[in-house]
């Protein structure tokens, strides 16, 4: 068996390496900014998890452990590049500038989306596994026809690679040279099922069969993810077609807050992955190289705390949706049957209000 590839620029110990295939031109300021992103995204996720525990959210899907994969790829995008996420890409949303509290709406049960995708070129979360990879491919086909210099990135999980839709997306993108990057976060698990139950071959190698390059990157190395994603996006912009990136990472939390991973995986596994933590390695690099001091880290902690407490306030104050919303956005054009149904229901509700007055 040939050795498996793994692009790495920052080792788990925080040592800076170089990969001739993926040279990274990056300033200290940029690395410090990436560090801030990682900390903010983790703090956001911790707060959302706490909000779920306290009953403010119905459910939460944690990004814990996947911050580098999400921030690194998200920061490789330029304005106008469009991202199609699953339900876990909070770090990409952050990089794209989506206001954090908006990500909580669907998990609180007040909407099915909650942000305008066009505001930040960040599509709505998609819960049906794999579907969005085809939307991303189609969007890229549009970009191609517009002769624009942008590209698209499609996020999906290791489990999703088993879906027909994902394989169809690979086929379409390949056949049309669509400017799309397929970004698979292999976090080793699809709910209770380990990666071995989905594939017998390293995921990045699948790309070859579809006729485009695949690369495996250390998904806990924000610099490597940034470098690899930039190269893939550049290829897409140059009309060379899609790339599959397999970000090798780990789901450090439960699948969602409804899940109990102790039923199917060993605690030891998590302990091993903790040694490869995506944030710790950047911190140790910055510290050891003297590129950041205690004040820098303390300031970011403070900023993260402030963000978390604002998030908490924002979501607790978030208004419940109004009842008519059930009917109002089903169709773009008027629909008499729904109109009648809505009016009948509003009258019905008002009949109780009148009853109360009596």
């Amino acid at each position, binding site marked *: 068996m040939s050795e498996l590839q793994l692009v790495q620029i920052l080792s788990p110990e925080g040592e800076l390496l170089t990969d001739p295939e993926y040279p990274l031109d990056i300033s200290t300021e940029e690395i410090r900014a990436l560090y801030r992103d990682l900390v903010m995204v983790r703090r956001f996720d911790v707060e959302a998890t706490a909000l779920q525990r306290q009953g403010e959210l119905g459910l939460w899907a944690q990004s814990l452990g996947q911050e580098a994969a999400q921030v690194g790829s998200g920061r490789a995008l330029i304005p106008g590049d469009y991202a199609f996420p699953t339900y876990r890409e909070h770090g990409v949303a952050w990089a794209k500038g989506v206001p954090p509290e908006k990500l909580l709406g669907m998990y609180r049960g007040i909407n*099915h989306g909650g942000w305008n995708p066009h505001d930040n070129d960040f599509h709505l979360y998609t819960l049906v596994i794999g579907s969005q990879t085809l939307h991303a491919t189609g969007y890229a086909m549009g970009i191609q026809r517009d002769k624009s210099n942008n590209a698209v990135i499609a996020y999906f999980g290791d489990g999703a690679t*088993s879906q*027909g839709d994902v394989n169809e997306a690979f086929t379409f993108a390949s056949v049309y040279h669509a400017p799309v990057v397929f970004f698979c976060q292999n976090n080793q698990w699809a*709910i209770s099922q380990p990666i071995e139950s989905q594939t017998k071959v390293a995921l990045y190698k699948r790309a070859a069969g579809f006729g485009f390059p695949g690369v495996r990157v250390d998904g806990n190395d924000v610099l490597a993810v940034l470098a690899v994603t930039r190269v893939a996006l550049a290829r897409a912009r140059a009309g060379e077609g899609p790339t599959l990136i397999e970000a090798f990472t780990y789901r450090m939390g439960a699948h969602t807050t409804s899940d109990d991973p102790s039923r199917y995986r060993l605690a030891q596994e998590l302990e091993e992955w903790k040694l490869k933590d995506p944030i710790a390695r950047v911190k140790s690099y910055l510290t050891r190289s003297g590129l950041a001091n205690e004040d820098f880290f303390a300031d970011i902690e403070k900023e993260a705390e402030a963000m978390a407490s604002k998030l908490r306030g924002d979501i607790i104050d978030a208004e419940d949706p109004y*009842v008519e919303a059930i009917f109002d956005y089903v169709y773009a054009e008027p629909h008499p049957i*729904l109109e009648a149904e809505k009016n009948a229901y509003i009258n*019905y509700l008002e009949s109780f209000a009148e009853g109360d007055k009596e």
Partner: protein
Amino acid sequence: MITLGKAINMGLRRALTEDPKVLVMGEDVGKLGGVFRVTENLQTEFGEDRIIDTPLAESGILGTAIGLALRGYRPVCEIQFDGFVYPAFDQITSQLAKMHSRSLGTLKLPVVVRIPYGGGIGAVEHHSESNETYFAHTAGLRVVTCSNPNDAYWMMQQAIQSDDPVIFFEPKRRYWDKAEIDEAAPSLGLHETRTVQEGNDLTLISYGPTVRTAIEVAAVCAKEGRSVEVMDLRTLSPLDLAPVFESAQKTGRVVILHEAPTFLGLGAEIASQITEECFYSLDAPVLRVGGFNVPYPPARLEEHYLPDLDRTLDAIDRAFAF
């Protein structure tokens, strides 16, 4: 007393014990025992060859189940949530449903598709749908749903024994409802409607998750001096409407209650058939109470969408106003 979810587990267990050809397959059904624990402990008991954690692909699950059935197995497929059955829609409606007739009766497809369905659990999108109509509308499929643990236990076994494909809808918000089950013998066949309680003034028809609602409605009506007959359809395709006609002829008033949107829902078909069969016995038009004709709303609005006690009582008032 056992829960409805546990009753299905026991039904599966018994079927697996009695027939070595029975298999269970789906996402997370093995080690985890399913996200609702309906298949809990089955893999430890029957092994990985019979309780199969499949790749994450619904079309794959159904398509390979068809192949296994062609080879003499009796697969029971789990779809994790109602809204995730659509990737398998071609395999179910074009392949599974039609193979028996295409082969002029040569091929048998004893596949069961378990679908936890309906809302009321505060879930995110795609986890609360009532999509039974798509399947009931497809010739070649049998469609059933249970409302209580005893039916859950027996109907699961009967569905597995059927030589036709059966879509088995499980009312997920009732998984935790408890009741006694009679392990000696089933009281009804798979395709029989049950009269839950007798009454003289109005017939209230329901199935799955809203049967409990219907029973609560009847209790309120009783206090108001209205005697409501409650019927649990159990079988959605084929429908067993003879007892329904009999009841309609007795009471003269019928209300149908289900979670699915009313537009082209089961209620529409039933109302039409009652009108044809019982026209001269009716004192009021057959009325429907159901979900609105909209996508299932976010959790904080679902109480408005779900047909509840009050909306059913309102329909009953209207039926009596004629």
